[in-house]
């Protein structure tokens, strides 16, 4: 049955009793997951009425059972917290969007996404969504850029937290944050507001910042951390060498890197 659901060109008839049984069971699982993370929101929104999932034909299906407004939900409504309701709407809309995309995925994509991490799964579904629908160019380019940035930085050791840096350098987390604010460390602010640090900037054998990097950071203080990261990790002359500015710094060729930084993104021959 699962295989059948995954066939993109073979629409499943919701009236098929066998399918309906599986589908109802899946929806109950979705509802259970939602309740696990958002018990009050689910009640507040009367899941039975609001949780609408479309099958591949675009027909709206419901959980089949309207959930009565409970005491918790009443309290939640009484609070009248706008953000609370918005979060619930976001969750439900997300479920609807994910359900729609999963319904269109070919079997090999389903298998691949099941094996991937949560962020990769979401990126994979987002990409599938963009391929299916006309979409704003900026959204498409941003998604592509985010995916590439993540891959580039993962290949160079990934990102570490403020805590990791503080333990590594033997200073407080507050000191780490101040250094990041001053631009003496390469740091990105994540969506949650925390700082993350590309790991490649640390000389882990000697528990210090990579020698020579400070000089570059001073020269490039106006650069965005993402662009500085790209500059360091992308081969500057791939026709003749796999060297990146980072490998040059690791070899001690800091002046050469400063020269490259001066002409980075400049139009030249």
């Amino acid at each position, binding site marked *: 049955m699962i295989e059948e659901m995954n066939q993109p060109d073979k629409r499943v008839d919701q009236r098929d009793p066998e399918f309906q049984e599986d589908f109802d069971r899946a929806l109950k699982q979705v509802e259970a997951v939602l309740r696990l993370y958002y018990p009050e929101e689910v009640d507040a929104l009367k899941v039975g009425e609001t949780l609408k999932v479309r099958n591949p034909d675009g027909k709206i299906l419901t959980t089949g059972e309207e959930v009565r407004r409970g005491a918790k939900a009443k309290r939640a409504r009484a609070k009248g917290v706008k953000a609370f309701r918005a979060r619930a709407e976001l969750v439900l809309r997300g479920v609807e969007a994910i359900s729609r995309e999963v319904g269109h995925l070919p079997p090999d994509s389903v298998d691949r996404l099941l094996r991937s991490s949560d962020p990769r799964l979401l990126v994979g579904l987002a990409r599938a969504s963009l391929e299916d629908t006309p979409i704003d*160019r*900026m959204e*498409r*380019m*941003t*998604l*592509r*850029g*985010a*995916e*590439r*940035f993540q*891959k*580039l930085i993962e*290949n160079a050791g990934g990102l570490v937290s403020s805590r990791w840096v503080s333990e590594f350098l033997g200073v407080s987390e507050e000191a780490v944050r101040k250094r990041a604010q001053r631009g003496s460390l390469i740091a990105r602010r994540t969506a949650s507001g925390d700082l993350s640090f590309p790991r490649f900037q640390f000389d882990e054998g000697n528990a210090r910042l990579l020698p020579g990097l400070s000089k570059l950071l001073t020269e490039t203080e106006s*650069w*965005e951390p*993402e*662009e500085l990261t*790209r500059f360091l*990790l*992308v*081969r500057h*002359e*791939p*026709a*003749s*060498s796999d*060297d990146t500015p980072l490998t040059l710094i690791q070899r001690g060729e800091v002046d050469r890197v400063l*020269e*490259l930084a*001066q*002409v980075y*993104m*400049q*139009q*030249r*021959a």
Partner: protein
Amino acid sequence: MARFPEDTDTLESLPVTTIESNTCFYRVNGMQYNSAIYFSASPQNRWTPLGGSPGVCYMAGSPVGALAESVCRNVARLDESEMFSSLAELKKLGMFELVLRNPVTVLDLTVAHLGRYRLDATILGDYDESLSPPYKFSPAWASHAVDLKLAGILYRSRHKIDETCLGLFDVGTDIFEGVHGTLDDDQYLEILEDEFMWGVI
């Protein structure tokens, strides 16, 4: 076959082209500067003459060429994960239009059959990191063009071969300039995506 210029390489024996007045070129340049007309003397640049003088202003025949020579350099050789830019940095760069007010005569390396001049496109791949500057032949040809009183060198972008570029020497050419927005504008994002499959972050 790249080679050094010789005494027999005269105006009559080399490919020379006159670019008509009011021809428009494009240049990507930082918006923080007052002007995009910048003559670089950096030995890191291919057509800087030996000794660094005169300086050279690099421009392209189209916005696509200007992007190929700046933001999207080496695009054909990059891995997919290397092909993106920070949107905030694109916002700092402008697409400038540079109009040559007078006709200029230049060494033209875009002509067909460069071989008949005992030259070919490999001169555009002239790069050796072990050298300083890292070019063996190009600076010598730039110096030779200056000696012949040419105003610059017309060449094909090595990053996007069908785009024409101009290295204009700082020899007093009258240039009108205007800016056509920053690179985060829709028209340039369209080029970045359609021509270069670029991403932004």
